[in-house]
């Protein structure tokens, strides 16, 4: 039909569906929005009815949704949450550095670098293969027990090391994907001008590679923010552990909701920022006339 073709070609419709970040609204304009709102309202109503009509709802409402529990536990959890934020911020810096080194090592060509490449590969395999909670338990309980002089015995320190090692593996792979995505002709151009391999990497390859992987990097940051809760398994009082303490005191679970709210409040802005960066990147590429 002609109208079908017309709509596809309409740049305004195209632009709007892009703004919605892939949440495409079928149908046109106001009518489409109305349908979307109506179906969402029906869906939410069905879920609410199903949940509140369930046999266990009165008990769940008492234990999870007691406003007094949630609000009274909130200040303590918020204070404990500061530790999560600190762990996240400090770990992130070291993860970015460690992962970059590992990714560069894995990208070194030639047989001379085989041992280094193999070492980096083994590290990445282990970092991604061992469950995070195990790494944290092994380091958090094991490393201080060694009683090495000059090495911190704080569990928070070792839990942080665990997070850095685990996420370093993931982020190294993100970097490596970025490095591989830069066409070899870029390195050839840089080397042909007399730049050393390191200079080419620093000035030509990495700036392009990192720019391309910022969205997936931010995605891993979001994961790390959540996983700071695993530090609580060592008995360190961070937001999750604090909410468990509250739970044990009141025999209700409102404090979990308070903790969940704090984590979400931290991750959502980062998630939207990531979306914004992706959208901006796409606009730039389209402005340049390319689809690369």
């Amino acid at each position, binding site marked *: 039909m002609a109208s079908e073709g017309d709509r596809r070609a309409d740049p305004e419709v195209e632009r709007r569906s892009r703004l919605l970040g892939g949440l495409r609204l079928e149908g046109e304009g106001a009518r489409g929005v109305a349908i979307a709102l109506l179906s969402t309202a029906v869906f939410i109503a069905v879920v609410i009815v199903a949940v509140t009509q369930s046999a266990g709802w009165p008990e769940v409402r008492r234990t999870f949704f007691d406003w007094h529990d949630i609000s009274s536990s909130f200040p303590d959890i918020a204070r404990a949450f500061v530790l999560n934020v600190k762990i996240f911020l400090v770990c992130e810096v070291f993860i970015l550095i460690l992962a970059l080194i590992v990714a560069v090592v894995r990208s070194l060509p030639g047989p001379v670098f085989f041992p280094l490449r193999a070492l980096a590969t083994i590290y990445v395999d282990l970092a991604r293969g061992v469950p995070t909670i195990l790494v944290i338990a092994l380091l958090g309980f094991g490393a201080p027990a060694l009683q090495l002089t000059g090495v911190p015995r704080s569990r928070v320190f070792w839990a942080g090391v665990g997070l850095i090692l685990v996420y370093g593996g993931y982020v190294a792979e993100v970097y490596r994907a970025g490095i591989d995505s830069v066409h070899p002709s870029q390195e*050839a*151009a840089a*080397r*042909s*001008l*007399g730049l050393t391999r390191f200079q080419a990497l620093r*000035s030509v390859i990495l700036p392009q590679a990192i720019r391309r992987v910022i969205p997936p990097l931010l995605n891993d940051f979001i994961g790390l923010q959540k996983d700071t809760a695993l530090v609580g398994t060592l008995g360190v009082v961070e937001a999750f552990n604090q909410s468990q303490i509250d739970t044990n005191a009141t025999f209700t679970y409102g404090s979990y909701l308070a903790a969940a709210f704090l984590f979400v409040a931290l991750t959502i802005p980062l998630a939207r920022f990531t979306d914004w960066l992706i959208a901006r990147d796409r606009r730039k590429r389209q402005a340049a*006339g390319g689809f690369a």
Partner: protein
Amino acid sequence: MSSLRLHSIHKSFGDHEVLRGIDLELEDHEVVCLIGASGSGKSTLLRCVNLLEPLDSGRIFLGDEEITRRGVDVNAVRRRIGIVFQAYNLFPHMTVLRNVTLAPRNVLKLSRQEAESRALDLLARFGLESRRDEYPDRLSGGQQQRVAIVRALAMRPQLMLLDEVTSALDPELVAEVLEVIRELAAGGMTMLIATHEMSFARDIANRVCFLDDGRILEQGPPNEILQHPRQPRTRQFLERIIEAGRL
């Protein structure tokens, strides 16, 4: 004195022998055009001269220095040889000015001021000074290729290698790039040029070499090679070029 001397260059990729013994000598200020079908080894030869591809055997002399000897500083060699690629290969994350000043600053260790004044002189000479702060994707193909030439020239090379620098361009943009190369030739630059532009080769080259299947089958002054080729393979190639309307 000879500027570049290639002695019995051999190069294979896997089982495929791309270069089967190339001997070639360029005098100072000489412009030599390599012609031949795609896959005849023109690009590979240029990449070998710039040491971007390791040779299987053979020797290359730049001036009186052998650049294929063991332990040679490849970065020092590449400083003296400029190469321009078919696909421009500008650095997309840098402005025109930074593209041109990157190597002079990092490799020649020029100060920012020195590197920029050198770059701006060259950009002005080729009508690109107004583009100094643009990113490559805002430029036409012809402008990008001219910037790529300027980027190579900023290192003040003693030899330029041009690898089909107009092949990726729209026809109306070819002339502006060829004009730049003519100017370089007029300025006495020694150049080894792989090209499909036969009329350009006839205009600019002191000598034309016909590459066929990894060998230089025939070489000589452009008029002789392009109009009175002795080898049947050269004749065949030129006939196809004429059919395609490129001569």
